[in-house]
């Protein structure tokens, strides 16, 4: 079971992300052993699995923060990072990779807001320098997104003046304000105090409802079950099982998934 026909889930059938046979090695260790995944426009796909299963690594390959040694990742039909030329696999020119990254948003576990810029300026940087928008236009977009994530009153605060949850909401606004085709969420609530998790998940829920295409690595099973259109369980660098959350989370087929989900006993019924 390599792919799921997204159209079956009631989404517009056009593929935003399509990965085929992705292999990734760190030295001698192969951490991705052939990942195939399709994400259609508007889908929210959750990647779950134990740490070390390759979820984050795969996410980082999608926007070329990690190189991968074999396979093809396409976003909007365009191969990311590499292309074939005369039967040889070549890395795309850096300028092309840079342009491709701009269309793929990413939100990190540790927020990674630019520490020297205010919340508003964090959002504006990409809009002005990458999208070439005027300061006024970028400022207006930043203000709109800050309002959407509920931080209008914090726009002139620096990251160190914000709580973790607030920083992460700014980071989400920074990623989505670029109007990406796809947004990658890498365990975005793992570094947060439990009482701050909710505010970030609420923002993500809002984005999911608005039709944003999202690929989400998460350990928040309740959240996954409520917003994901599809859940992908990774195990040992492979996709072990995937399907709608009701199926995957409630009727796991493989023993590995059953034991993995067992750790979240009490969170899921």
């Amino acid at each position, binding site marked *: 079971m390599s792919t799921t026909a997204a159209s079956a889930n009631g989404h517009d059938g056009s593929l935003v992300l399509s990965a085929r046979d992705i292999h990734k090695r760190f030295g001698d260790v192969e951490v991705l052993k052939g990942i195939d995944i399709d994400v259609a426009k508007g889908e929210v796909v959750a990647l779950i699995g134990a740490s070390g299963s390759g979820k984050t690594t795969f996410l980082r390959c999608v*926007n070329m*923060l990690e190189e991968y040694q074999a396979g093809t990742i396409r976003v909007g039909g365009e191969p990311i990072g590499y292309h074939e030329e005369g039967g040889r696999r070549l890395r795309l020119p*850096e*300028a092309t990779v*840079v*342009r491709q*990254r*701009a*269309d*793929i*948003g*990413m939100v*990190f576990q*540790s927020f*990674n*807001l*630019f*520490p*020297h810029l205010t919340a508003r300026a964090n959002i504006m*940087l*990409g809009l002005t*320098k*990458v999208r070439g928008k005027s300061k006024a236009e970028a400022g207006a977009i930043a203000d709109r997104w800050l309002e959407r994530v509920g931080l209008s009153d914090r726009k002139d605060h*620096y*990251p*160190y003046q914000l709580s973790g949850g607030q920083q992460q909401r700014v*980071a989400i606004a*920074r*990623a989505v304000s*670029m109007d990406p085709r796809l947004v990658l969420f890498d365990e975005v609530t793992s570094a947060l105090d439990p009482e701050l998790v909710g505010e970030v998940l609420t923002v993500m829920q809002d984005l999911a409802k608005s039709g944003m295409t999202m690929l989400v690595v998460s350990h928040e099973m309740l959240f996954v079950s409520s917003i994901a259109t599809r859940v992908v369980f990774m195990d040992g660098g492979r996709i072990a099982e995937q399907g709608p959350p009701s199926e995957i989370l409630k009727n796991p087929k493989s023993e590995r998934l059953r034991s993995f989900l067992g750790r979240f006993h009490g969170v899921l019924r």
Partner: protein
Amino acid sequence: MQYFFNWDVVWRATDKLAYGLVLGLGMATFALVVGSVIGLASALVLTSPKLKALHRPVRWYVEIIRNSPLLVLVFFVYFGLPQAGIRGLDNIGSFVLTLTLYAGAYMTEVFRGGLASIPARYIESGMAIGLSGRQCFFFVTLPVMFRIVLPSLTNNLISLFKDTALASAIAVPELTHTARWINVQTFQVVEAWTSVTVLYLVVSYLIAFVLRRVERRYAVIR
């Protein structure tokens, strides 16, 4: 033998003291600014794998300067360079050149440490929003590094200002030289050296006071 205080000798030399003070501050500031450019360039060379061929010469520059007494370097440049056929620098020019190269070597280490201490995740999030390598450098790495090294810049400016006293050894008319001039002209030893000590102290303290406020304004890294 009794010592008679006569502070008049200091007041009469006000213009010379003021000139000496401004000259010292000017030389220190120039050395800090140009030294920072040299230091940043050297640090970038040392952290770039592409410029490996230049690592050794840059390291030699830094090590030679950092392991020699500044006074010796001052004499070396002032007396040595003309002998080697490099002329055209008066004593002030010669001292400023020495102090700038000296500052550059120390700033190399400061900037190298600053660059090394920037977490890679900031660069990554710049890349993730589509900034090019160059843009990441100018809009993320540089401004963050500047804030990290600001306290070191303050300390270096104060050190360099105090180091300008060594220029008196080659007769640059800065503060220390002026004190010596008052001393030999009037034999009022205590007045001469007290006045410049107070001047060095007050000015250094003021620099620190002002720049600590600037640091607080820019201290956004936690």
